[in-house]
């Protein structure tokens, strides 16, 4: 087991930065999820850690030892890093036991010893009895577990997962999620887990690194990501947060500040030390919104769409002041709002996105 440190890692393909200036410090035994939309550089990041790609700049250390920097790269076979691939990558010409025992065979571990370790690893992923099957005769979930056992058996210092659940159906996904969590608890292995599915990341990870266009957008605990996004990208990406332009009226006091949003004054949470500025933005989520009653202050607007989502209505709301900025939120109940209905929306609270307003949140 070991920690993993990325310092200012950049990977350039041609003149395209797939990973740009990323610094992450993964603690020993930590479960880190890397989350981001497709194409944001997650797989590239993982392949850099595994040693299949060389860094263009920056440095990667595993357990305190430098494995990649501009000067050179420790080859993958010497890194003691386990990988679970999205397509499992089981070798079709080997049995389950041979797949799992491969790294032991390569390391010329004594046969009996190897057999014992393989059995142990198979027991750990609940596959005892399937040792002599071929991968082709296994279900998707079983293949996933074989892949897990295969990387476990070598006692890697670090296990990397590349969207391991993307190929499974919804039910299996939930149960594998539980298994991964149990596996992490049992083994205490350092894990870097790549996914584009935020609920997966939220459920599993100690911390989440959100990536955007090759950059690290925010590295924080799931709770913090949700309630205190560091920039507009994270705010809108996580749980479909609503980002609204705002002007900060007062300096921070007790973690709160006054802002004006679309003509309405609201007290929102903020970072210590934040102060009055124009062109700020806030992040609000469904629980922060209320339908204003008669005579109460609120944002005037029209319902442009109301879709029943089972237990709640998803409402698209166009503020009169800025009709192009559609606010989508959920409202419990299933009646009362038709398309075209006029409505006043009250923002009860929110989070003041730190920084100097929208310019900072924008990426090239």
């Amino acid at each position, binding site marked *: 087991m070991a920690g993993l440190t990325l310092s200012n890692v950049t990977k350039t393909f041609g003149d395209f930065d797939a990973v740009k200036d990323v610094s992450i410090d993964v603690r020993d035994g930590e479960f880190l999820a890397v989350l981001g939309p497709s194409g944001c550089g997650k797989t590239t990041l993982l392949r850099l850690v*595994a*040693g*299949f*790609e060389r860094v263009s700049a920056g440095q990667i250390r595993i357990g305190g030892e430098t494995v990649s920097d501009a000067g050179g790269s420790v*080859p*993958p*076979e*010497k*890194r*003691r*890093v*386990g*990988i679970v*691939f999205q*397509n499992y*990558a*089981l*070798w*079709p*010409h080997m049995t389950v036991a041979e797949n799992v025992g*491969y*790294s032991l*065979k*390569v*390391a010329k571990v004594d046969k009996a010893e190897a057999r014992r370790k393989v059995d142990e690893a198979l027991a750990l992923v609940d596959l005892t009895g399937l040792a002599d099957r071929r991968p*082709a005769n296994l279900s998707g979930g079983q293949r996933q577990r074989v*892949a897990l056992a*295969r*990387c476990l058996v*070598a006692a*890697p210092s670090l296990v990397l997962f590349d969207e391991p659940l993307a190929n499974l159906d919804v039910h299996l996904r939930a149960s594998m999620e539980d298994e991964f969590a149990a596996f992490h608890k049992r083994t205490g292995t350092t894990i870097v887990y790549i996914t584009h599915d935020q609920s997966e990341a939220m459920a599993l990870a100690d911390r989440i690194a959100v990536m955007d266009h090759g950059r690290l957008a925010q590295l924080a605990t799931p709770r913090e990501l949700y309630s205190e996004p560091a920039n507009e990208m994270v705010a809108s990406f996580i749980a479909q947060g609503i980002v609204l332009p705002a002007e900060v009226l007062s300096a921070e006091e007790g973690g709160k500040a006054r802002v004006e949003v679309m003509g309405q004054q609201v007290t929102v949470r903020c970072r210590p030390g934040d102060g009055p500025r124009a062109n700020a933005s806030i992040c609000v989520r469904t629980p922060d919104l209320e339908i204003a009653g008669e005579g109460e202050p609120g944002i005037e607007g029209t319902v442009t769409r109301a879709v029943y989502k089972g237990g709640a209505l998803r409402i698209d709301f166009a503020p009169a002041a800025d009709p192009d900025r559609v606010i989508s939120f959920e409202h419990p109940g299933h009646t009362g709002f038709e398309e075209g209905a006029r409505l006043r929306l009250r923002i009860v609270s929110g989070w003041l996105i730190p920084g100097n307003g929208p310019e900072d949140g924008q990426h090239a």
Partner: protein
Amino acid sequence: MSAPVKESRGQEMALTVAVAVVIVLLSLLPMLRLIKEIVAPGGTISDTAIRLGLASPATWTATVNTLVVGFGGTVLAVVLGTFVALLVTLTDIRGRSTLVLAYVMPLMIAPQVTALAWLQLFGPASPFLKMIGMAPPLGSRNPLYSTEGIILLLGVQYGPLVFLLVRAGLRKLPRELIEAARSGGAGWFTVLRTIVLPLMTPSIVAAAALAFVSCVGNFGIPAFLGIPANYLVLPTLIYQKLAGGGPAVLGEAAFLSVLIGVIAMAGILGQEVMSRRRDYRISSTSLPADPYELGKWRLPVEIGMWLFIVLILVLPLFGLLLTSLVPGYGIPLGWATATLDNYRFVLFEHAAARRSFFNSFALSIAAAAFAVLVAVPVGYLVAWGRHKWIRYVNLSIELPYALPGVVLAIAALLMFLRPIPFTGIQLYNTVWIILYAYLARFLVLALRPTVSGYHQIDRALEEAAQVAGAGLFTRLRTIVFPLVAPAALAGGLLIFMTALSELTVSALLWSSGSETIGVVMFSFEQGGDSSYAAAMSAITVSITFVLMLATNLLAPYLPNGVLPWRD
């Protein structure tokens, strides 16, 4: 039934029937005729043909020789082809597409030309060895006139075949399978040994079977290298028997040709059995693995590869060229002695040679044009048709090409020895029997790319035309043909190149007046006029090269893998 329904059914029916007729005529009939000759010569069932054939010691010697050169050539082809495929596909060697082009080239050169070229390179009269002062004394034996010589050239000729199949397999190997092994602690050689090669066995076995069939059916190489040493394999034995005995020995020849067919089939069946035992289909699609970095070995490996190319391609062709410029046997070549007389002689003076150029061009063009025209509708039925039986049709079109050419040639002889019933038309001893054999044998070369062309076209394009009211024939003409034309034409060009210097079939079917380039080349070489043979070879090789380059212009419109030499 309403009239429009009838019309559309009618057109489809007409197409299906036409395709069926072509297939029966070109592939089923000859095979059946051949089998009849073996089991029921003269009309009644008997085993005399088989017994007579098996009793002859020449049969046994030739069979053993066929197996020896077949296995030897296959092993060499598999080793060479696989090695080059691994090197070119998995490492960061530079100049990859040029390398592929150069390595695949021998496949596009007729076997007898390969044989001639190598003979000219190593023989005592070799202008090249003379130039570098290493020629053995005149009258000494050419080392290539031997079993080893035949095996060597078969390996060189069919290594590219193995290369193409293994390379295609390697390209489908998902990189994760390699990367999983590497993070499991395996270095590159361990990965190669434990992951890559085992996963490539289906490709390698399939390639080996194909190489084996090609080796046992090859005529040109054992004809040029074996006959002078009196080392006969089955195809050359058949040739000698027919050349000596004429139609009288046709029954015996039929038995021998079926024997080759059986050996070739055994190779194919062996592959089936092996690949059923180890069926590991790789289903996931992914990027190919990152090339292995050769590091400080890169330059030496590249130099080694190019030396290899020089050895198997450049030097032999250079030898061929030099011989074609020599004024007479054994005369050293220099600026003063070099002459184009040989070219003038074969192109303008020698009547049979002159005729052969005309014949081969006409035959190749006719075979190519016919195949393109037939491949479009047949491919339509195979790729998009609703009938299950069409798959078997596809198989039966493969047969005349998959089986050694000798088999088809003998079948054609049997069919057309007598005038065609009811019509009285005589094909035997005319150029038409060769045309028939070419049509049957090479159709598949146009069909394969056409079918893969169909698979790449969105069927909705045709359906849109259908919705717009176009009948089947209109759709075929206005929509389908233009779309698959590049693939079909590329197939036609492959046929043209293959047929132009074809020897195996025409050696058995030619007659005075219907000589082909291959036949005349062969008889020049047998008569000791290597320079004339070399001049003819040089001409056909140049035509092939020019066509290959010209075909590259079609490449952007073609499905992948249609042009074997293009990477």
